[in-house]
């Protein structure tokens, strides 16, 4: 009788252990994603130029990350790993667009500032930022990503290379050409240096 009780106890423990492990991993995943959520959402929004699509992209990235979370042995690498997934999801979404979707932020900005008086300098600055945003929307997915990582995320070129899993030289070259194309797009719109 005593032996029977022991066996039952062991059986209960054996069934509990994997479930509790799974719960612990789920909690760890939720905590790690939450730490990165703002940064990744903002990065996705900058790259995609659409808040709603950025939400969907981060959600998709989180789904992918959860699917592969069991294979991530070191939680300290989660930030770079998850960031890479987000960037890849953004790239996929941009490539899925048959034509570059141009989100014109000009009217939105004008509506925001409509209620207050602007100085001439402020108006020019707003128009310039608007022009940059529109030119940015016309870039290729890879150009957008490398510029966003470097100039919005403020990553070093080395970090950009790590994030994109490309050599540093390639990252430098890709950034250089992306900026050239952005400048060309701006100039095509009649942008002039202030």
């Amino acid at each position, binding site marked *: 009788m005593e032996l029977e009780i022991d066996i039952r106890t062991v059986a209960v423990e054996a069934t509990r252990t994997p479930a509790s492990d799974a719960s612990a991993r789920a909690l760890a995943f939720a905590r790690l994603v939450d730490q990165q959520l703002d940064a990744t959402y903002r990065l996705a929004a900058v790259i995609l130029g659409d808040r709603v699509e950025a939400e969907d992209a981060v959600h998709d990235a989180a789904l992918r990350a959860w699917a592969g979370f069991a294979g991530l042995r070191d939680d300290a690498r989660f930030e770079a790993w998850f960031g890479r997934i987000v960037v890849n999801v953004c790239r996929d979404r941009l490539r899925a667009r048959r034509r570059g979707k141009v989100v014109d*932020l000009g009217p939105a900005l004008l509506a925001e500032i409509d209620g207050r008086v602007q100085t001439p300098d402020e108006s020019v600055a707003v128009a310039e930022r608007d022009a940059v*945003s529109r030119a940015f929307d016309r870039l290729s997915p890879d150009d957008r990503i490398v510029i966003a990582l470097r100039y919005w995320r403020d990553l070093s070129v080395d970090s950009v290379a790590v994030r994109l899993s490309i050599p540093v030289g390639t990252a430098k070259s890709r950034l250089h050409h992306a900026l050239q194309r952005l400048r060309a797009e701006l100039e095509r719109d009649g942008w002039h240096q202030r």
Partner: protein
Amino acid sequence: MTRPNDEAFDEVVRGGLATRDPGMAPESLRRRIASISEATSSTDRQRTSLRRLGSIAGLAAAAAVGLVFAGLVAVRWVGLPSVGSAPTPTALPAGIQPVWPPLVPGSPSGPDLRPIIVGATIAILFAAVWIVRVRRTRRIRQLVAIALVVMFACLLGVETLYTPIVEGSVGGPIEPADRAVDPDPVSGGKPVAYVDYRSGGAFQIGFSIRNNGPLAVTFDGVGDVLALNDFRFFRFVDLRLPRDQTLAMGSTDDTTQAFRPVDLAPGADLYMVARFRFTTCEEANLPVVPGVDAPETDTSQGYMSIGSIPIRSHALLFERITDLSIPIAAAFPQPTRCAH
């Protein structure tokens, strides 16, 4: 236009990107993210198991195809004699009179594509498994599944429809000595050769087949010989291969050998000898259907065409049967009474 210097341009870019920054993640997104691990943690082990099963199944499929490929290569390199390259002619044994004209073996029209097809299939399977493991999106899985289904449907279609075995260039009786006549409309325009009926005797027919497709084909033998045995006056005995395909004639055990499966290169001919035995008079007059009397035979000469022989072969994996019309019609006087 004056271009701004790099630093100034950097600031312009930063300012432009800042307008796209939406700020903190909305609460709705936080809830969506939180629900991912909560909803899926309970089924995580099941999904992991399924994923492992899928990987194992994929690897098993690839291994199975690999084994088949290895088997094909091994059989091709070790086991089967391959026809398609011209063997050295040998002298005909003394006393054997050729009935067929000298023959020229078919020259291969192209390389054997079977290893390429099988190798490509293995490569595609490995690539599919790799892609599914690396890019674990639902869309990728769907695309890979569709691609594999289409690929296997194509292979199955080719397997089903591919019938490259055709009649060869020659065919005719070998022995006993025959009386060949001009093409006769009764025999469908084929040259008719009379084979004298001899109760319990034997006669042989030589014919060739050709691999008319781009893939090498393994010729496995004849199919259902019962169809051949439907003829009341003779029985199919066996199939033999001439020892010398360049001569492809003669009928004795010296000039032929027992049949064994042969690889036929694309465009190659294979010559063979089919041996038949005349039925005895009593067998010939047995009722075909038990209980029903045999039809009364007349005394005139009649035709008894061999018709077609079912050829059994396979090009990749599956066996196929090709009904091959033998380009002759044997004819002989039908016996009316059994002479004892």
